[in-house]
């Protein structure tokens, strides 16, 4: 008798605690979801809002007026989208031109001061962004690069090279040196071998590094702000001005446009990146 009572008592507690912890967990997850997705939901709502005034929890007027405005070929957004894309593409080209030869050279263990060179490309990232960009802006001012497309591309490249060098060193290190030997063995010179054997092996990693650099360039704000403005207007700069002016619709739509390439990137990374490449980084 006592035993059953005890059992009942215990099971009462356990049912109670299960329920309690269930609600607690649900609440926790809900809060977490709100924290993560709340801003995004808010952003999405703003993109289809025509008017929304303070005390209301939902917009008073819905519509796609601002989308039409954004995609008007003469709008600020279209213009800065083109500028952003142009800068991103040029940045990718500059980074590739540097990181392919550098990555190949640094992937060889025989390269002197290998680690030193690789760390060199990390140094700009070690200081606070702002100081670095302010100093670059000062330097560029002397060379007349401030406010030019070239100046912005160079600033983005300094930032992008960090990724592209490290990723391409990893990509080249993961290629099998025996494959190179086999090519030389069959009569191909070093340059022919590089383009026909080495590069195809490293291509997936290089593609990944290009995408990374491209996205970083699209998103870059600080450097562009210091070196490019007011002549060069990229999407992030536009986003900033729009938010400052309280034009949340334009800001939200711009943000959404900036989101698209990142999602594309996730998909491509999944297809191309080889895990063994990353493991070669430490060698």
């Amino acid at each position, binding site marked *: 008798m006592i035993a059953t009572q005890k059992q009942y008592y215990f099971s009462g507690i356990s049912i109670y605690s299960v329920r309690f912890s269930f609600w607690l967990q649900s609440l926790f997850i809900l809060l977490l979801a709100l924290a993560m997705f709340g801003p995004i939901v808010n952003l999405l709502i703003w993109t289809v809002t025509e008017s929304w005034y303070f005390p209301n929890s939902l917009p008073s007027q819905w519509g796609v007026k601002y989308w039409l405005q954004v995609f008007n070929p003469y709008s600020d957004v279209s213009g800065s989208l083109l500028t952003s894309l142009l800068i991103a593409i040029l940045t990718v080209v500059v980074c590739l031109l540097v990181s392919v030869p550098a990555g190949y050279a640094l992937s060889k263990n025989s390269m002197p001061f290998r680690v030193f060179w690789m760390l060199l490309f990390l140094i700009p990232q070690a200081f606070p962004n702002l100081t670095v960009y302010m100093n670059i802006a000062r330097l560029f001012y002397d060379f007349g690069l401030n406010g030019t497309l070239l100046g912005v591309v160079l600033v983005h490249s300094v930032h992008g090279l960090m990724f592209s060098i490290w990723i391409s060193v990893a990509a080249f290190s993961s290629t099998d040196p025996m494959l190179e030997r*086999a090519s030389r063995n*069959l*009569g191909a010179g070093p340059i022919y071998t590089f383009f026909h054997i080495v590069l195809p092996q490293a291509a997936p990693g290089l593609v990944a590094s290009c995408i990374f650099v491209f996205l970083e360039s699209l998103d870059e704000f600080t450097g562009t702000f210091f070196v490019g403005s007011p002549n060069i207007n990229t999407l992030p700069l536009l986003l900033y001005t729009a938010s400052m002016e309280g034009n949340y619709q334009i800001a939200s739509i711009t943000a959404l446009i900036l989101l698209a390439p990142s999602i594309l990137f996730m998909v491509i990374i999944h297809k191309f990146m080889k895990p063994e490449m990353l493991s070669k980084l430490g060698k």
Partner: protein
Amino acid sequence: MTHLHIKDLQAGYGKKLILNNINLEVRQGEMIALLGPSGCGKTTLLNALCGFIPLSHGEILSDKRVISQLPAEQRNITMVFQSYALWPHMTVEQNVAYGLKVKKVKRADIETRVAELLNVVKLAGLEAEKVTALSGGQRQRVALARALAIRPDVLVLDEPLSNLDAKVRLSVRHEIKALQKKLGFTSLIVTHDQEEALVMADRIAVLNKGQIEQIGTPEEIYHHPSTAFVADFMGADNHIVWPIQDPGFSLNINLPPDDLSIYFRSENVSISLQATINNELNQQQNEGLIINGTVEQSVFFGNSYRISVRSGKHIIQAEHYKHLPGKTPVTLHILPEALHIYAADVKSSVLEKN
């Protein structure tokens, strides 16, 4: 077809010297096996030949032309790599055609040559396969076809059979040999398997710690190993150091009274059941090494029994056609020509050869 001549070659990695004083001639159309234990420098020698590592001394001549200064792509010595090193982003056909494309051979000629080679190595029909989809034996043959496509002066093969299963290995062994006889290319094949070397090669060079110990025909290497290392490596599984102060042993052979190191094969040990030493044997039979002992163990080996015989502190391996029970008293007899005898302290010098 080419005559390859390696003169006083010395090479290694960085400051680490691996090969020393290598002298080797591969005659036209000959297949030489480089035989030696793992880590003795076989691959290093091929690397030096192909120009992947520089020589620190000596030279390599291909038909009297010095090639040791040329970069790898100008030597026309092609290699079948141990790992095959096929290009995974290319098809079978593209792999085989590569060397011809580099040489800017006409497209139609490339096609006929590739088709011809794929026929020879029995891969016709797999032209469009990615090499990653092939089995080990097939990859091996792609590597062979790729190396032969540009009609190299010399073909070198680095342990071409070591990545194959035992059964495939036996057939590929004969295929390579037949191909070599048919096409008549000069070649060097690396192996650590003595049987492979004996079966495939016209001559064998035994390598030990970066130096050549002996060069000779398979019969010479097998029957007259010139150093203790070669005898040991070629399967002389019994080794004793003379003199032995044991009444069970007697050695009747004309030799200076030095310390001797004696090797012989278990297959050359004949077993008789009675203790017949000294008396009933005639003079001729009495020559050589005679050992009295008792059977310790008898293990079935398929075509024979492997008998371990104990005599004093020594265990001698012998082969016999039938099982012998333990403790059986036996007499072992090894003829003089089956004994490989070396000076015990200077392991490499031969004292007596019959």
